[in-house]
């Protein structure tokens, strides 16, 4: 239970992740940063000269599309709310040839390309387009075509181009987000000097692109789709520490409990084991009996633990929803079932030698003397 619940929480925390997009195969991130810094990306290492490098990547026939991603938390006001609300702005360059879904938000409502960034300068056409998710629409109390106003000075105003149907889940619940053009977000956040972005998403079917990506920036990390889960977890020390601590404690307690229970069981069955030995059962056969019993206990414990762990995750989420107004903290990932069950099997294997050793101490002469 402890293992599943804490791992679910750790997974939830670790899944405050990189901006996901359809068919994205590579993420280029600064080496000093990580993929789960959405909410705290301001001030972290960033990529520069992103428009030029994106153009270079787009000209490569192997690349389906590429876009930098700039993440900024911006206080925003609407006409119906006096107090500013904080919204996570995601600036992207909308590909000319496709309209991918980025961070769960469709890009087809935005004009293709990055119109405000014209000829290498920030004096093109200001679109003011923003695609927001339902959470942002809710906190700002706006709908499509309504204006929204960043508190910080911007060259022009923004308006809601559309409200998408998809929420943006983070480890601590749904975040209000707004998808805008990269250059407009750079202008709002003062990132125009270096043409900065936090990540670079690349969609391709050709693995040889990876080398090209690695040569784009010194001191960056290229993460593959398959490696992103590892990257997400491994770059986050707290969830990893929590998960490892839960694993160690679960294994330790599980092994001690299983070994103790089986020790008591074997001691209780000592007479039966001695009888079987007297009747001609070999040590190997008795060991098989004991291991079977130990593994059965471990599997039952695993099933019970996974069940209680699922309940623990649900209770945790219900508790944080009730107390912190956060929809979910822990993630109930299907892999947790296999993980919990595998750990239970390992516990059984590690605990088995002790009852086997005890069973071998059962002397057949004991029952003859009784």
């Amino acid at each position, binding site marked *: 239970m402890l293992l599943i619940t804490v791992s679910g929480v750790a997974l939830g925390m670790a899944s405050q992740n990189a901006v996901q997009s359809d068919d994205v195969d590579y993420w280029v991130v600064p080496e000093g940063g990580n993929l789960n810094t959405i909410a705290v990306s301001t001030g972290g290492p960033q990529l520069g000269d992103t428009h030029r490098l994106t153009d270079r990547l787009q000209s490569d026939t192997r690349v389906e599309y590429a876009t930098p991603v700039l993440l900024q938390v911006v206080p925003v006001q609407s006409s119906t709310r006096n107090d500013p609300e904080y919204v996570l702005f995601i600036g992207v360059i909308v590909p000319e040839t496709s309209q991918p879904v980025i961070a769960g938000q469709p890009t087809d409502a935005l004009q293709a390309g990055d119109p405000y960034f014209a000829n290498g300068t920030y004096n093109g056409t200001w679109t003011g387009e923003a695609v927001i998710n339902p959470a942002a629409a809710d906190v700002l109390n706006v709908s499509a075509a309504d204006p929204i106003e960043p508190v910080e000075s911007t060259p022009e105003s923004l308006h809601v181009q559309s409200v998408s149907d998809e929420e943006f889940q983070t480890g601590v619940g749904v975040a209000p987000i707004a998808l805008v053009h990269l250059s407009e977000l750079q202008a709002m956040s003062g990132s125009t000097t270096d043409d900065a972005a936090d990540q670079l998403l690349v969609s391709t079917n050709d693995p040889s692109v990876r080398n090209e990506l690695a040569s784009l920036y010194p001191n960056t990390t290229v993460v593959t789709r398959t490696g992103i889960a590892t990257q997400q977890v491994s770059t986050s020390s707290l969830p990893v520490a929590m998960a490892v601590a839960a694993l160690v404690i679960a294994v330790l307690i599980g092994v001690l409990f299983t070994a103790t229970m089986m020790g008591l069981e074997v001691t209780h069955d000592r*007479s*039966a084991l001695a*009888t*079987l*030995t*007297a*009747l*001609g*059962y*070999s*040590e190997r*056969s008795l060991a098989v009996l004991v291991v079977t019993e130990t593994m059965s206990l471990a599997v039952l414990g695993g099933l019970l633990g996974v069940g209680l762990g699922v309940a623990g995750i649900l209770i945790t989420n219900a508790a944080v929803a009730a107390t912190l107004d956060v929809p979910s903290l822990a993630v109930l990932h299907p892999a947790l079932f296999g993980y919990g069950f595998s750990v239970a099997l390992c516990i059984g294997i590690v605990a088995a030698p002790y009852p086997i050793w005890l069973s071998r101490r059962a002397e*057949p*002469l004991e*029952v*003859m*003397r*009784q």
Partner: protein
Amino acid sequence: MVPRSTIYHSSSSTNTSTEVDPVVTCTDVSRHFTRGSSHSGWFSRSSQSAEIVTALSNISLSVTRGEFVGLAGPSGSGKSTLLHLLAALDTPSTGSVALAGRQTNTLSTRQRTKLRLDHVGIVFQHFHLLPSLSARANVATPLIELGYSRRQRRQRATELLANVGLDDRVHHTPGELSGGEQQRVAVARALATDPDLVIADEPTGELDTTTGKRVLDVLAAVATDRAVIVASHDPQVLDRVDRVIRLRDGHRQKVDETT
């Protein structure tokens, strides 16, 4: 009944040749146990001297197929120790025990366990049936180790229970059986592997006279085609056997031939 075995004491040097290959033979067998510790413990500075206790001294006997032999003697006389040696549960300190033609003191524990499985059936005083299993499952227990299929085990166990008059108790657990019925289940279990030698230690010790007689009837019937050795204080048992070997203080006293 004329005994088909030779029973002798080594000190008497009055050996008689056997007519049939014996199932079990012990020659000049002694068994010593050490009481106390001869070395210091981890936390003890003083050394305690060990005391050597002789449970059996220079016993020789031979039992062939078809014999029903009783071991008699007061408590501490060495009956159980001799049974353990004959059943390959233990090995002698000196001398030798040959069971089914194999010297038990030259075998490893694993080999002796296999020897018991193949050649020895044991009936315990307190039955030692597995309480969670039915009578049939108890009888079939040794057959699992021999690799019998489930169907073969059930068939054999059912037959054996019928032979001891328990065909209507096949599905009963030991807790649902009387003492006499439990002991007959134990006899059936001892016969499951069709052993050459059946060892019974006080098989009627927990039973009343009538019930004990029924168990003895079963053991006597069993002894027609195998060797049966019974250790007992019970005169009823000793009256039924072919020969009684009387022990006192680990030494053979005499042999009574009752038939």
